[in-house]
């Protein structure tokens, strides 16, 4: 097999004949979809100048002779020269010039041999008869040529029309495609129709991405794979197409989809056997891939720009939202919460149990609103990867105490038993994030357990980790909860009617702990058997006691 650069020399083939034969080839190609040796032979034989044309010309001559002899026997000889023009025209239209010429020569021979006296001899006895045969020969050759040309022109016009229609459909599909795969599909389909053969598409890494149906289960020719990988190594940018022959005798065109970027991969098109139509076909396939490549580049560029713009807009919107949430919601909330706490201090209110209750209600509810706003802000920070842990050496007892302090209102009615190690433990953490994470877990424990029940907080070193567990005697987890816990906005079905909240708590806690290189795990013996949430943080004893 040979790999050669794209110049295939034209070897003295008449341009018109080349185009005409191309039509014949393509028409038959579209009729006969199968692809075997017999069909190839048929195609070649049926082609102008092929064996069939010559044989059929001879058959025509014999048939016409038989007809004329029969007519003379039954009735009277019709005008012989004129009758012969009919098979000549038919041969010219079906098989082309060569077939017509053979018929004409056969006709002239028959004329001389059978119908001009003396019969069955080939000696022309008078000048006028010789002249008659010569004139017949000239007329029939010219007629044959003209008929063949007319048919060629008609076929060419038809072919051009089809081509233009195909190209129009193709350009429409390309321009309406909004994804690279759409363009690839259009390109593949168009090439498949045009060439009637196989199309392979390799991605930028050289692996096969798509192939036309026609290929079926056939293996990809080694020559093609080799050419593709060669192109990958050389870098597709700027490289032109190459033509390789596979072991079946077909020539493949291998070309990067775009000559400007390697991103769109490499396309391989089976151009069939190297015939006289080869160069024209190759030129058109190359032009078509070029068009598609440009469309892809435009689309790629446009998409990159629009993606960047969308990202920037999203980020801007997020910033604006967070800004306005923290300002526009929190400022009035600050006034409400602050004012409610002032009311709770006023002697007029403290002296009146009913008013005192109302003031406490405003206070509680505005505090709850504040917590939910904070959760939404935290969630948006996490979602946008805006979470930055500032890891420092810190004592776990510090953030445990801070979290208990923060939740002291919710935990007011509970007995909270806290067990922490006697010795100094230092963890590399962001205490503020850890306090918020533990706060969420304590908050959940309080929310989903009976008001008077006990909550246990235990901290201890376990192997290379420090584990902080919160155990409640509450609702526990059922099978569904176990699966869904930890998802954003998850709240157990059993609780959604009874307790308030958005279901962000556990998710936020998990994200905060993860930012501290830790894990959160929830275990439960079952429904209403309480649950234990365990935070595990990496412990590095060696460094923590460095003095």
């Amino acid at each position, binding site marked *: 097999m040979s790999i050669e650069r794209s110049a295939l020399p034209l070897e003295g083939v008449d341009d018109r004949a080349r185009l005409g034969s191309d039509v014949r080839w393509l028409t038959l190609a579209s009729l006969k979809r199968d692809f075997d040796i017999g069909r190839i032979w048929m195609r070649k034989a049926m082609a102008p100048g092929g064996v069939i044309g010559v044989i059929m010309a001879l058959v025509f001559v014999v048939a016409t002779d038989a007809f004329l002899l029969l007519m003379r026997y039954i009735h009277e000889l019709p005008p012989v020269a004129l009758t012969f023009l009919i098979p000549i025209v038919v041969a010219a239209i079906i098989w082309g010039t060569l077939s017509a010429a053979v018929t004409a020569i056969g006709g002239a021979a028959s004329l001389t041999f059978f119908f001009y006296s003396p019969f069955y001899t080939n000696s022309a006895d008078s000048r006028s008869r010789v002249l008659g045969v010569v004139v017949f020969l000239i007329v029939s050759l010219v007629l044959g040529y003209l008929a063949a040309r007319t048919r060629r022109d008609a076929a060419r016009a038809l072919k051009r029309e089809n081509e233009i229609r195909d190209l129009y459909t193709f350009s429409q599909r390309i321009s309406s495609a909004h994804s690279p795969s759409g363009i690839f599909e259009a390109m593949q389909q168009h090439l498949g129709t045009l060439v009637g053969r196989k199309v392979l598409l390799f991605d930028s890494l050289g692996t096969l991405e798509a192939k036309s149906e026609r290929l079926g289960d056939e293996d990809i020719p080694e020559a093609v794979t080799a050419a593709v990988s060669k192109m990958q190594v050389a870098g597709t940018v700027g490289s032109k197409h190459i033509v390789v022959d596979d072991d079946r005798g077909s020539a493949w065109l291998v070309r990067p989809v775009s000559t400007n970027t390697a991103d769109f991969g490499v396309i391989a098109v089976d151009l069939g056997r190297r015939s006289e139509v080869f160069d024209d076909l190759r030129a058109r396939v190359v032009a078509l891939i070029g068009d598609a490549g440009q469309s892809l580049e435009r689309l790629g560029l446009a998409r990159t720009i629009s993606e960047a713009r969308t990202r920037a807009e999203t980020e801007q919107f997020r910033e604006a939202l967070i800004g306005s949430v923290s300002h526009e919601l929190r*400022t*009035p909330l*600050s006034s409400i919460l602050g004012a409610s706490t002032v009311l709770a201090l006023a002697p007029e209110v403290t002296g009146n149990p009913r008013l005192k209750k109302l003031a406490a209600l405003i206070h509680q509810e505005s505090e709850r609103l504040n917590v939910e706003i904070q959760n939404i802000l935290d969630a948006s920070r996490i979602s946008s990867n805006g979470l930055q842990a500032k890891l420092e050496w810190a004592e776990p007892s*510090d953030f445990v105490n801070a979290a208990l302090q923060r939740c002291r209102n919710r935990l007011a009615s509970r007995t909270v038993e806290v067990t922490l190690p006697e010795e*100094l433990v230092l963890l590399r953490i962001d205490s503020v994030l850890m306090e918020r994470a533990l706060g969420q877990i304590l908050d959940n424990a309080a929310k989903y357990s009976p008001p008077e029940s006990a909550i246990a907080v235990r901290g201890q070193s376990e192997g290379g980790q420090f584990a902080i567990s919160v155990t409640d005697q509450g609702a526990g987890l059922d099978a569904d909860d176990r699966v869904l816990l930890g998802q954003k906005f998850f709240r157990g079905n059993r609780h959604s009617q009874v307790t308030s909240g958005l279901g962000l708590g556990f998710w936020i806690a998990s994200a905060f702990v993860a930012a501290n290189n830790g894990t959160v795990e929830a275990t439960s013996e079952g429904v209403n058997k309480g649950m234990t949430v365990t935070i595990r943080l990496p412990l590095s004893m060696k*460094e923590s006691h460095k003095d």
Partner: protein
Amino acid sequence: MTDGEQHVLIIDDEAQIRQFIRAGMELGGYRVSEAANGNDALREITLHPIDLVILDLALPDIDGSELLERIRAWSTVPVIILSVRAGETEKVKLLELGADDYVVKPFFMSELLARAKVVMRRQSERKDGESALRLDRLVIDFAARTVALDGKRLNLTPKEYRLLQVLAQHPGKVITHQNLLKTVWGQAHVNNTQYLRIFVRKLRQKIEADPNRPKVLLTELGVGYRLNDPTARDPIRTE
């Protein structure tokens, strides 16, 4: 001392916020002035004897931290910062600029009142120049350089005493990690937070009943430490 004569200036551009703080402060027995922007505030501070400034960081004309710097250039008046931005870095910066305390919005009035009381008491004690600090069972005698718990003298290493002393010089005030490290260990160790953790732990083991649940030497997460008087009627809530 009587709180009745003490004058509080509220600097906040939100009228609603000023309104409820004024109500709360007046309930607490303070005299109240208001300023809606930085320039009015500066004029107010120069014209009247102010005992406490409550300063919101978001002001229309002057940035809150800049205003704090300007006030600190010539006045030691206690300043409590109000902020919606709760970042620890920002708190540290404000404390370094000379803020006495900060409260993150939204907050409880009781909390602001407690903090106001602490910073104003600290201010008047500073004027009195006391030589000892009593925090419940703990007594720190600056003159004798001794610390006693329940009347028993404690054995503190020089570093432990120095750490406690720096905190005790401003009881109730948050002293930042950097500040403590710089004062006790020196500029070179300003980032060695683990020194601080270890010595705080040792101190807590000596002065606290339960070092895991400290009542006196309190942690301000991500910012620093403060000394708290557990007998104070309104314990300071860490936000």
